[in-house]
């Protein structure tokens, strides 16, 4: 319950916004005004202000985000999602749009997509406490450490969502060896979400943590697919004249395989998929 002074202060603030928009109907601050009205629960007024503002500034991405927030508070989840997607079409790095889409995915039980959205929000705005908190919520609570502390690798790999169930720590080596032994593959490694290898050897690459750039690619690729409504990311291939790198996300881990020069892509994929399927089958047999 808000106290009387806070409500009175906020009402003055609302009046100030109203005066400002009366003086300057083209002001972009319609979005702040609509957002304040929404927080006060005045959803109809918020909607009218935001619609009016967006009619003048249809390409204002923050206005689209606020419109989505009004719609979700009004129980119109599909329309809200469409507004946030429009915002990202206008500004692909808008952290709040990624955050709101992530929350929506989380509410639908689409945890992988939610995690990708929160990670993308943090990629564009690393000091975004709301996105950080939601990411921690989506990934599940740590059984051993307080929230916010980085978990040791062994703990993280036991956490659902960090890796598929079949990929237990004792199978990392087998999977990497199987992939590295494929005729089309030069080197293979399993990397954690920071890009550090947890098993195997990454191809020779520059940079502090060699796997960091491919992992960052996967995070952004997931977000892109989510915006396009193209489904779950199964794998990615990045080729230059000196490197063909196959990246297969496995929960929070990724299998990174450098393909031999001029290897047929289809054949390499089949070989790598066979290794992954073999790991899944062995888990089934043990069960």
């Amino acid at each position, binding site marked *: 319950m808000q106290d009387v002074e806070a409500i009175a202060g906020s009402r003055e603030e609302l009046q100030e916004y109203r005066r400002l928009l009366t003086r300057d109907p083209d002001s972009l601050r319609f979005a702040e005004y609509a957002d304040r009205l929404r927080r006060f629960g005045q959803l109809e007024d918020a909607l009218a202000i935001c619609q009016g503002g967006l009619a003048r500034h249809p390409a204002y991405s923050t206005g689209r985000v606020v419109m989505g927030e009004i719609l979700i508070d009004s129980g119109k989840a599909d329309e809200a999602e469409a507004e946030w997607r429009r915002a990202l079409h206008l500004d692909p790095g808008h952290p709040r749009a990624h955050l709101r889409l992530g929350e929506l995915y989380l509410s639908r039980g689409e945890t992988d997509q939610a995690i990708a959205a929160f990670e993308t929000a943090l990629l564009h705005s690393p000091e975004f406490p709301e996105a950080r908190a939601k990411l921690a919520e989506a990934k599940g609570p740590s059984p051993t450490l307080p929230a916010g502390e980085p978990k040791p690798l062994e703990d993280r790999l036991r956490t659902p969502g960090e890796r598929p169930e079949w990929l237990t720590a004792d199978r990392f080596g087998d999977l990497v060896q199987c992939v590295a032994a494929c005729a089309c593959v030069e080197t293979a490694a399993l990397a954690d979400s920071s890009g550090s290898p947890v098993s195997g050897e990454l191809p020779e690459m*520059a*940079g502090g943590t060699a796997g*960091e750039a491919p992992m960052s690619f996967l995070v952004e690729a997931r977000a892109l697919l989510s915006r396009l409504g*193209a489904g779950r990311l*199964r794998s*990615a291939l*990045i080729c230059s*004249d000196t490197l063909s790198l196959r990246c297969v996300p496995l929960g929070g881990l990724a299998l990174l395989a450098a393909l031999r020069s001029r290897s*047929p*892509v289809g054949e390499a994929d089949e070989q790598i998929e066979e290794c992954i399927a073999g790991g899944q089958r062995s888990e089934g047999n043990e069960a």
Partner: protein
Amino acid sequence: MSSEPTTKNRGMGDTLDALMGVPGVLAGMVATDEGLPLAARLRTELDEEALAAAAAVLGQLGARTLKDVGRGELEVVVLDASKFRFVVQPVALGYLMVVTEPLAEADPVLGEMTSAAACLDEAGSALAEPRAA
């Protein structure tokens, strides 16, 4: 695109038509570096503008990743998603993108895209000539 007024643009359209003949191909597109569509052939529910933006984002992401690891210039990026496969190749005008069914054979598509990229680069150079003169 519905209107393609120049001979060069018809050349771009012909190149995309040839790509659309490869089994499993659902869309072909040329987009600028800024993510604007130059020419497109679509047989999917995907939005043309969104696809063009995605082509530029994917191309730039791939190029940045290779730059970060110091391993050469981007030749091609492939994203395999559960509903589609996206293949992006840089060309002189921006990016060539093909969308296929998720389980379409990759190598014939990649081979045809290399030929298409060469045609587009030729058309791109020809387009640039009058400006240079």
